[in-house]
């Protein structure tokens, strides 16, 4: 399908009386990486949650590849991979079990093969049968990346995706992300670091008080 891959139009969201997003408009082309900069409380995470179909907007639309994130939520979920700054993995399960579980949730064909490859790519192959509860913060974040990519999503939504990563982890993840982009994948990510935003993205957007302040 031609046209923008992700299109956000007149998006508004309030929690109670507090407006979080005020008339946000964004367009991301297929294969593009867009960085969302902004202070805490600017509305970055809420915007990502709406695009992922986790939160309903009060007004406006978010469309991925022509599909509405609210009306076509079930189809949209298959298109999205999400990495949050909190990993939210099942700590009682091993890395392998976590990936297989999410592979089954996304009905991934050959989930074992895919999980094994991803665990190697994020440098966790040797610890794949250990429980996530025993992992360091950086290792959990790497596994979180592997989980987000288990169903080979065309769109990655990344909320402060480098949280907790050391130099080695950052390099492994960048390689994984580069591969995703090279295969035509689109990314929308948030960060507080302007230099990282400029280095990793094709386009930087700044959110301030729920509005687009600068593109």
């Amino acid at each position, binding site marked *: 399908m031609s046209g923008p891959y992700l299109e956000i139009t007149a998006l508004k969201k309030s929690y109670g009386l507090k407006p979080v997003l005020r008339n946000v408009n964004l367009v991301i082309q297929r294969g593009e990486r867009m960085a969302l900069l902004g202070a805490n409380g600017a509305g970055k995470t809420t915007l990502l949650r709406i695009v*992922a*179909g*986790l*939160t*309903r907007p009060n007004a406006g639309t978010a469309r991925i590849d022509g599909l509405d994130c609210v009306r076509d939520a*079930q*189809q949209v*979920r*298959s298109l*999205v991979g*999400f990495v*949050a700054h*909190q990993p*939210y*993995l*099942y*700590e*009682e*399960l091993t890395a392998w*079990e976590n990936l297989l*579980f*999410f592979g*089954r*949730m*996304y*009905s991934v064909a050959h989930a074992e093969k895919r999980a094994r490859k991803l665990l190697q790519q994020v440098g966790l192959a040797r610890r794949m049968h250990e*429980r996530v509860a025993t992992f360091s913060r950086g290792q959990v974040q790497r596994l979180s990346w592997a*989980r987000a990519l288990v169903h080979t999503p065309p769109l990655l939504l990344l909320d402060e995706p480098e949280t907790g990563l050391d130099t080695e982890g950052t390099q492994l993840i960048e390689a994984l992300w580069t591969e995703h982009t090279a295969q035509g994948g689109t990314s929308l990510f948030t960060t507080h670091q302007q230099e990282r935003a400029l280095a990793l993205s094709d386009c930087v957007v700044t959110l301030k008080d729920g509005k687009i302040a600068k593109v």
Partner: protein
Amino acid sequence: MTTTRIFINQTIAILWKDIRCELRSKQTWMGMGLFALLVLVIFNFAFDLRVDNKAAVAPGALWVSFVFASMLGLGRTIAAEREKGSLDRLLLCPVDRKAIYLAKLLGNLLFIGGVEIVALPVFAALFDVPLVVASLLPIVLFGTLGVAAIGTLCSAMAAATRARELLLPILVFPLIVPVVIAAVRLTGDLMAPSANEPPWLGLMIAFDVIFLSASMLTFEYVIEE
């Protein structure tokens, strides 16, 4: 893969995950089991059990212990996932919300059932009543299904609030009154058969069907933001 096949696979995967997590953390089922046994012991000492009032007291004590112990497990069904944030991850997946409900319900049935299997012989010994397993089985099965069907839905409602431990029993107890009455009367009837009893088992099955259907249909709206 057909939609039905995907639905079944996802339900089994969620159930497998919940069982594995629970068996490793041992957070809920141990507490449920101990609680059920303690309630039975307390009731045993609290009531003056003579042969003539045993049939009136024992079934009530048994079902109170089952229902109270169930609350502990039901409270953790969704709350544990919400507290850890993993519920959002599950909701991000293209999984039918009915599959999540069904998996959680089956998990609850399994854990409550496990507690009941342990508690029943203790109940029989403490209250000195014969354990007629074949007759008791459908009563326990349909009674537990009714409690779990409502409890699973209400646990999703309660988990979205801060006062979830307080809210869950307030939501569940009024709704399960019919099924508990039916279960107690049926259990009592096994100990001291009485004539002209209403068809309690049929009522319990009808209750289960209605609440199971209603819960499956409404779970999606309860679980999502």
